[in-house]
Every structure is written in structure tokens, then in C-alpha cells.
């Protein structure tokens, strides 16, 4: 019997290196695409949370301002970061921006939330979700004195302007990676439907 040899020529080193390089390149592109997709997916999800919070907070504030008298027992600046309303039961509704890391938010140290109290500031609850940082909450009120209370002598109303409130709010979802943060800056105005005069 003759000797039977099996020769498998295989690949040269150059061929292997080229293949490995191409494979690495393809994997790099795929991994980058995957990572980008994951990050954008997270960012979209975070943006949805911010939008939902913005919508909810504006609706809550709008309903409150429409139906509840402005609390003119306190001194109002043209703009502030606190909205005070005074229902007929005497328990003020207060909506305010908390300091960063406020325990009432129950969130991370860097987070400032929107807080609401319906009993004059005794109990508070956050109006915004976890990880949503309130970067700006500004309330513009006009007029700053009640148009429904007679003052002076002879008595007269200080203004003939129906109260209205403009609220501007900038929210940011603070994610673990900064590139996944999502922000939203919105503003609306609500005219009071409380007709006294």
C-alpha cells in the first residue's frame, strides 16, 4: 500500500490577519450601532417621561388656577418659583420648586422636584417623577394685588385686571449617562375663572 497523505493547505498569516481585521471592523460597526441604538432608545424613553411629567404638571396647575382663587394674602413678586392658591376651605394649595436634594422629593441629591401641598404646607408630595430634575419653575402673576378687594378711601378696586398666571417649566431627565438626558422647556398661561365682581 502506498503512503496516503492528506494536505490541508489552510490560510496564510496575511489571509488570517485580513479576515480578523474585517471581522473586527464588522463587529465594531455592529457594536457601535447597537450601543447608539440602545442609548437613543433610553433617551427617547427618558424624553417620554419628561413630556408626560410636563403635560401632567401643566394640567394640574391649569385646573388649580382656573378654579381656585389666587392667594393674595401673601406678597407677590412679578415672578417667583412658588404658586399659592387659596380655596374657600382656607387650606392653601402651594406648588413650588424644591431645593436640590430635598428629602420631600425622595430622590438623588442633585434632583430638584416640583412639590405640591393641598393643606397649606403641612404635607407635601412630589408632582414630578423620579430622576426628573426641575431646572426652572417660574410663575408670572398678573395682577400682583387682588382686583376683588376694595382698598383706599374712597374705596376702589386697585386694578381691573382679571388674574392670570403664566407658568414656565424646564424639566430634565437625569440619566446615569449624560448623553441619555432629555430636557423639555415649555410654558403656558392660565386665566382664572373665578369671577367675584
Amino acid at each position, binding site marked *: 500500500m502506498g503512503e496516503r497523505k492528506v494536505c490541508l493547505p489552510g490560510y496564510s498569516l496575511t489571509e488570517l490577519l485580513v479576515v480578523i481585521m474585517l471581522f473586527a471592523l464588522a463587529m465594531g460597526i455592529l457594536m457601535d450601532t447597537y450601543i447608539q441604538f440602545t442609548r437613543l432608545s433610553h433617551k427617547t424613553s427618558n424624553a417620554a417621561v419628561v413630556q408626560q411629567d410636563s403635560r401632567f404638571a401643566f394640567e394640574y396647575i391649569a385646573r388649580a388656577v382656573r378654579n381656585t382663587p389666587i392667594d393674595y394674602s401673601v406678597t407677590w413678586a412679578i415672578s417667583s418659583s412658588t404658586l399659592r392658591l387659596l380655596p374657600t376651605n382656607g387650606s392653601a394649595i402651594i406648588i413650588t420648586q424644591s431645593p436640590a436634594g430635598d428629602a420631600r422629593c425622595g430622590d438623588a441629591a442633585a434632583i430638584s422636584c416640583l412639590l405640591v401641598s393641598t393643606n397649606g404646607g403641612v404635607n407635601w408630595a412630589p408632582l414630578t417623577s423620579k430622576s426628573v430634575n426641575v431646572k426652572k419653575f417660574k410663575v408670572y402673576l398678573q395682577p400682583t394685588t387682588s382686583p376683588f378687594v376694595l382698598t383706599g378711601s374712597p374705596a376702589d378696586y386697585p386694578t381691573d385686571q382679571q388674574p392670570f398666571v403664566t407658568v414656565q417649566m424646564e424639566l430634565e431627565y437625569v440619566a446615569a449617562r449624560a448623553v441619555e438626558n432629555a430636557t423639555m422647556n*415649555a410654558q403656558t398661561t392660565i386665566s382664572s375663572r373665578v369671577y367675584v365682581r
Partner: protein
Amino acid sequence: MKLKMPNAKCQISKCGKFGIRNLAFGIHVLPGQTIMEMLLVFLIISMGLYGAVTLIVANVTHQEADADHLVAMDLAREQLELAQNKRDSNWLNDKDFDFGMTNIIGGCTAITNWNGSAVPSFVFAASAQPVNLSSLAVSLGMFTNQVGTATVFSRWLNFAPICAKPDHSATAVSATCACSDPAYTDKVGLRVLSNVKWTRRGSNKSLSIYTDMYDWR
């Protein structure tokens, strides 16, 4: 195809088109891929990547569109609320309910003159005017039609009287600032149309909402 092997006994004369060919010397030949096969593979991979990239871009675009729409809706609602506030303030001032809205010099299209401090009013504008982030100290960063940093949004209002027949059996919205139709002579209300326009990625978007206000509470 001819491969030169170091061992003289391991020479191959030719190999098959597909698969492995066993020659008399017992040599196995791995033919590899043709250029067409490689191109096909690249095409399939490219299609997969294109699909993923398209998905990402669409995702981002729709998310931005959602956010823009939400901001635009709030800005549009703001104009309606300011119009409502004007009517309510007119009552307190013992003026006609539509004073400052249908008697604007220039016409019945307007923008809101509201900068966060003075009493708001409406001024004539023939078309949508830019919404800026205010640069005024009193209202820094506020969305306003006053001077400031530009945003993608612009807005304006249209006031149209709601006119009724003398016996109030029917109403119609006037195309002018007054009840000019001889059949509909009594002004009973006001239709306020709020328009917001914006541009994103070269695409023009718009939103319009309206409310009907009457001379009663």
C-alpha cells in the same frame, strides 16, 4: 486553480467548483467564496445596518416631533387664555367684551404683547411672528413675541366675530372684523383662532386651535 505545495507529492491539478474534492493523492481543497457570494453577504449586512440606522433616525425624529407638538400646544393655549383674560378684564373695566381684539388698528390678526410684567395686549400682525426666549431682565428666558433668543416657533391669533340673526335663530362666524353680513347683524361672541408654526429638520409644521367666547359668564 493551482496550488504549489512544499511537498512534491501534494500537488493539485484542479479543484471542484463546490465543496471538497478528493484527489488520488488524498488532498483536500477548500475552494473559498466567490466574489458574488461576498457581495451578497455585504449586501445583506448593509441592509441590516441600513434598517437599524433608519430605525434610530425615525425614533429620534418622532421624539423631537412629539416634544415640539407639546410645546406648540402650550403656546397656542397660552394665546387663547390671554384672549379669555382680555374678555374677562373688559368686563371688570366696563368695556365691550371684545374690546382690544376686534378693534385692533390694522386688522383682526394679532400677536400677544406680553412680557411677563405689564398688562398684556394684542397688536396687529399680518402673519405669524417669531416666538423668542425673552432677553428682558424681568422675564429672562420666557417664551414671548418680544425681543430675545430665537426658537423654532412662531405664532399669531385671528379674531372673528360670531354674528347672529336679529331673532338669534342662527349664528355665523364673520370673515371680517365686524358683523358685515346683513343677515347676521348682532355680535354675540368671538371666535379666537390660535396658530403656531414651527420648523424641524427642514419640515414645516403647524397647529391651530380655537375657542368661542361669548358675552356672558
